[in-house]
């Protein structure tokens, strides 16, 4: 192999690496775009997705969105890489990639998203309130139907077993309540 051949090989390898990098970056950008679209759509239609489901969707997008786009690129170019440059065909391929990725994302969302709840406040806040309601009920039994003057009484006198019941998990930085009376 002559030095010129070696330089050619190196040049081809570099071009291949750059093409692969471009492909990877473009795939990631497309997936990010699709994910952003899905999030915006979910905000509009008020669907609720747990953190677990979001992670599953993101992993699935990252892992699988490249497959249909690569197949499309193979059919169009006879190669797994995208066409470089801004040709019409390349733009069509990019649009197809977005469409495929979006379809893929929505299939997964349809599988993973639970039925939208009519009521969206966190379950822990409500269950904690129910627990406090029971504590107030016990206080009322002992004090002739009177309401406790403040929440601290429930803690001090042992009606509220767990002080954490007075917190809503989702707003842990809530300021303290008035210890000497109602708010």
């Amino acid at each position: 192999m002559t030095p010129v051949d070696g330089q050619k090989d190196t040049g081809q390898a570099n071009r291949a690496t750059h093409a692969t990098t471009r492909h990877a970056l473009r795939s990631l950008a497309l997936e990010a775009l699709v994910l952003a679209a899905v999030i915006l759509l979910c905000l509009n239609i008020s669907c609720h997705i747990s953190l677990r489901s979001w992670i599953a969707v993101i992993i699935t997008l990252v892992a699988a969105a490249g497959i249909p786009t690569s197949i499309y690129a193979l059919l169009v170019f006879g190669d797994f890489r995208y066409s470089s440059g801004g040709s019409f065909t390349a733009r069509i391929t990019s649009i197809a990639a977005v469409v495929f990725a979006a379809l893929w994302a929505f299939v997964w969302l349809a599988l993973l998203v639970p039925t939208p709840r009519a009521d969206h406040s966190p379950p822990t806040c409500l269950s904690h309130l129910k627990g406090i309601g029971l504590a107030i009920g016990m206080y009322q039994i002992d004090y002739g139907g009177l309401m406790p003057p403040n929440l601290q009484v429930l803690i001090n006198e042992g009606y509220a077993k767990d002080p954490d019941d007075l917190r809503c998990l989702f707003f842990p930085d809530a300021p303290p309540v008035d210890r000497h009376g109602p708010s």
Partner: protein
Amino acid sequence: MDRHDVDATSSFVYALPKPGCALDATLPVMWDKRATRFHPNVAVLFADLHAGRVAFSDLITLLDSKASCYARPVVKPVIASKKWEWLRWLIQG
């Protein structure tokens, strides 16, 4: 640990009703201090000790209409900061 050392730090507002006021299912006594902008429902404990969720605007209206039933002016719920809004939205499911 002595229970008296525990500070009743709360995410909820507690409002003590006046003695003469009827403790019925329409009088809120505890509620979330905050609601989210996306889904502004607030968990509420009523005076008959049943708990439920009420729309943010409905609770504000209810508190205004029942203002005379409380011993002191109540703290109304507020819309949460963006940070907690997103966290709450992501975690709940």
